[in-house]
């Protein structure tokens, strides 16, 4: 095995059993204040919660601290997971979201006692509309996929109001899997759209498929190959001429902020991922937040309540919640959406400002192109088309040695990095989708490049070292097939 670069070293890792294995009867981790009213008799009482853990407070702390050390986060190092925008999560965002008055605000408290929270939502809405160039927005969807569903439901409502809901949604073959799943939930059939040799929408295929039954084209721009759809205006015109609407998946908005606005290039409806572009933490798999921005003609269909500005005091305008929206698709989630993500995203926008947001976009794109240039030659570039904020390589040069994208990813772990996105997008065989984000320094990138080059060399000279990686982790590769065949989804006492 090659010597590890200075970035990674071996380190003691504590073993830690399951909570239930640490547990012992009679231990307590909590104490309540004495009850200051008479004890009431419950109507019916459950039996003991069999197997439920019993730990002291310190054991809880050690348990979750030890478990945390088995994870890799953005705070640990470069996390170039393509299409996920794993950028720095500022600590001040965590602080402000937990302030008394915000962190403990109740979503149903009277509006005159919610002015601060509504003002935050209003300011974030204004900033997101400025960034996207759209006309109206809802912050309610809980995540990107729910944003997609909200957007497609609004499209369906708008087309139904015209008297023609249509039957189909067109989706490029490079799209994220949520796009077709979403269209199906909204009651649409999914029609796949081919990519052309440049990795962008095939205009002749679009021209052929875009007929009177197509409600919308769901497009990601830049797409999942990290490529800007240069024909975007022709695409939008074609969709609009034939009575459809253009939906944009904003997953890759980190390539555009301050540089290009979807509202200016023909998009009718789009969602944003606050956990990607706007730095709300990914949290190990959520929470996210998926605001949906629309053009003026779709505003009547926004979910209720709609945050509006009432100009009754002569001032800047008072935020208020409007429920009287007869054409609304209705509510998509209880309460106001993931408000805690709104405070964090707004704090991120305030910290960067117009200048920092633009610089962020430039650095994200610069970093991806720097990686691309330095890795070209050792790895195959999937498409010659210029890259935006991410670059898709393939394992075409390594596959002849029996080394595939998943193996290279595992070997990167030994070098101290989180892998890229493996085997996605599906249109690239052996895809390696790399998004460094603006949070990577040149030193991070150079170390990553050195690791990737070393792995390319290993793939040629000692492929079994790569195909059996990782070698330095707490556990080695798990037998996922066996786990799925006979699933064990919970602990049971021996």
């Amino acid at each position, binding site marked *: 095995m090659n010597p590890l670069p200075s970035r990674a070293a071996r380190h003691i890792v504590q073993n830690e059993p399951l909570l239930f294995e640490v547990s012992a009867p009679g231990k307590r981790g909590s104490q309540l204040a004495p009850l200051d009213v008479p004890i009431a008799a419950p109507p019916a009482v459950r039996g003991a919660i069999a197997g439920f853990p019993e730990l002291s407070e310190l054991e809880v702390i050690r348990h979750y601290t030890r478990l945390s050390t088995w994870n890799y986060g953005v705070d640990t190092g470069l996390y170039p997971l393509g299409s996920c925008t794993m950028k720095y999560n500022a600590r001040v965002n965590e602080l402000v979201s937990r*302030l008394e008055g915000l962190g403990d605000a109740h979503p149903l408290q009277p509006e005159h006692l919610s002015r601060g929270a509504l003002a935050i939502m209003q300011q974030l809405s204004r900033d997101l509309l400025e960034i996207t160039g759209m006309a109206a927005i809802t912050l309610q969807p809980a995540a990107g996929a729910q944003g997609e569903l909200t957007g497609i439901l609004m499209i369906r409502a708008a087309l139904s109001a015209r008297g023609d809901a249509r039957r189909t949604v067109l989706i490029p073959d490079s799209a994220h899997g949520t796009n077709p799943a979403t269209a199906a939930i909204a009651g649409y059939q999914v029609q796949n759209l081919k990519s052309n040799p440049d990795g962008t929408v095939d205009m002749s295929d679009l021209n052929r498929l875009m007929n009177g039954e197509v409600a919308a084209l769901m497009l990601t721009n830049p797409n999942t190959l990290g490529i800007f759809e240069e024909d975007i205006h022709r695409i939008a015109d074609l969709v609009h001429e034939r009575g459809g609407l253009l939906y944009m998946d904003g997953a890759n908005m980190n390539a555009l902020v301050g540089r290009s606005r979807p509202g200016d290039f023909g998009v009718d409806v789009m969602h944003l991922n606050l956990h990607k572009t706007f730095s709300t933490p990914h949290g190990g798999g959520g929470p996210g937040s998926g605001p949906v921005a629309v053009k003026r003609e779709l505003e009547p269909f926004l979910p209720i309540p709609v945050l509006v500005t009432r100009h009754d005091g002569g001032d800047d305008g008072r935020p208020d919640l409007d429920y009287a929206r007869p054409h609304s698709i209705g509510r998509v989630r*209880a309460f106001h959406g993931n408000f805690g993500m709104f*405070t964090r995203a707004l704090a991120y926008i305030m910290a960067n400002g117009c200048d920092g947001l633009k610089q962020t976009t430039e650095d994200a794109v*610069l970093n991806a192109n720097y990686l691309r240039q330095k890795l070209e030659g050792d790895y195959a570039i999937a498409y010659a088309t210029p890259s935006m904020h991410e670059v898709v390589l393939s394992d075409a040069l390594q596959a002849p040695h029996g080394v595939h994208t998943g193996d290279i990813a595992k070997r990167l772990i030994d070098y101290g990095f989180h892998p890229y996105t493996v085997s996605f997008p599906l249109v690239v065989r052996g895809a390696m989708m790399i998004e460094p984000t603006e949070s990577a320094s040149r030193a991070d990138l150079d170390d990553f490049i050195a690791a990737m080059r070393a792995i390319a060399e290993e793939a040629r000279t000692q492929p079994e070292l790569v195909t059996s990686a990782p070698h330095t982790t707490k556990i080695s*590769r798990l037998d996922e097939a066996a*786990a799925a065949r006979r699933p064990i989804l*919970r602990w049971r006492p021996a």
Partner: protein
Amino acid sequence: MRFLPTSDTIRGQMLADLGLNHADELFSHIPEYCRLQRPLAIPPGQSEAEIVRYFRQAAAANAPGFASFLGAGAYHHFRPAHIDMLAGRGEWFTAYTPYQPEISQGTLQSIFEFQTMVCQLTGQEVANAGVYDGSTALHEACMMAARITGRSQLVVARTIHPQYREVLHTLTRYRDFPLVEVGYAADGRLDATALAAAVSASTAAVAVQSPNFFGTIEEWQAAAAAAHAHGALLIAVVTDPVSLGLLPPPAADGDDGVDIVAMEMQGFGIPVGFGGPYAGVLATREKFVRNLPGRLVGEARDREGRRGFVLTLSTREQHIRREKATSNICTNEALCVLMASIFMATYGPEGLRELALQNLSKAAYAAQALQAAGAEVLFPAPRFHEFVVRLKTPLETLQPVLTRERIIAGLALARHYPELGNALLVCVTETATRADIDRLVGLLTKP
């Protein structure tokens, strides 16, 4: 820009490496008309001190330090300090979905433990890794029941949280899932006769909440029998998991009990936070696992035979199945799930029982005190920590004095249950002191 690790000098060198003179050239392939030709109309970057000041002012314009008797799906329970201290470790909150199990065992093991604790708590056989929240969990449970039964009609209790029902209505509006609502009886519980009449051979699921939106406790067995009599499944909605510390759980009970649980986990240490983020969860029978949406973590062995955990059964999910997936959901609200797990591990079975008993006792005290002071408390059925009181005047007329006294009295029900008149839904948790309760009673019953 303090977040960016690249200096102007290094930027220049990197651009030169790429043969470029200016960053604009990185965007030159974007058509001219797509490029924004002006700065964004957003103020320049601000210091951390300025940001904190802005949010402190916003927080002060809400209701900091008020005594709150609001519940209705979002519950004020005390959050032990170590929840945020632990969840605030970067290894938890700056990681993403555990696609690479070798460097994600922390997240994976904690989710496996979460799934187990949800099963223990609910008496169900399997639980998923989490969904967005309780309202969307109900929708996912209904779709799941429709897949399992091959039927489409949904029978939904009117005593399920009104916003949950609104979400269900929105998310099914363009597909053929007829919704039938079943009302409540004079005691504040599900109208059993109306339920029996509503269920038929075309019913996929009956959905019932307990404690219901009025705070009264339903009987799972009776509801299950009504559903099962026609081959429908019973979905149990739980909006505050604290109730399960004490009350009979929505258990699978062989074939006789609840078939799918759709639960909101917020009450377990997740901030009330103006409505989110929260975490929902689905729990069900083992035989339905392949119809369960959302992520699942399973136990596995590595090459050396060591135990580890992985995301499993992903052939149900959108990234594999695309338009044929069980749902379009990706996230499992992992950080909120972590908070709930730490809460459960901290309280343990005895702590949860005491906590639930305190909630029930405080609400009972408040209801009795209101009744003794002449207020009309509706619905005699047994309750958990919420109840309905009918005011002599609309809540708005009392609002100025309540605000002055820094009390949030509860939720006016007129919008969703106009037939109840000036009804107020009051929630009393362990966070309310007896003095707070006595002040509330005095203000609501003042002649």
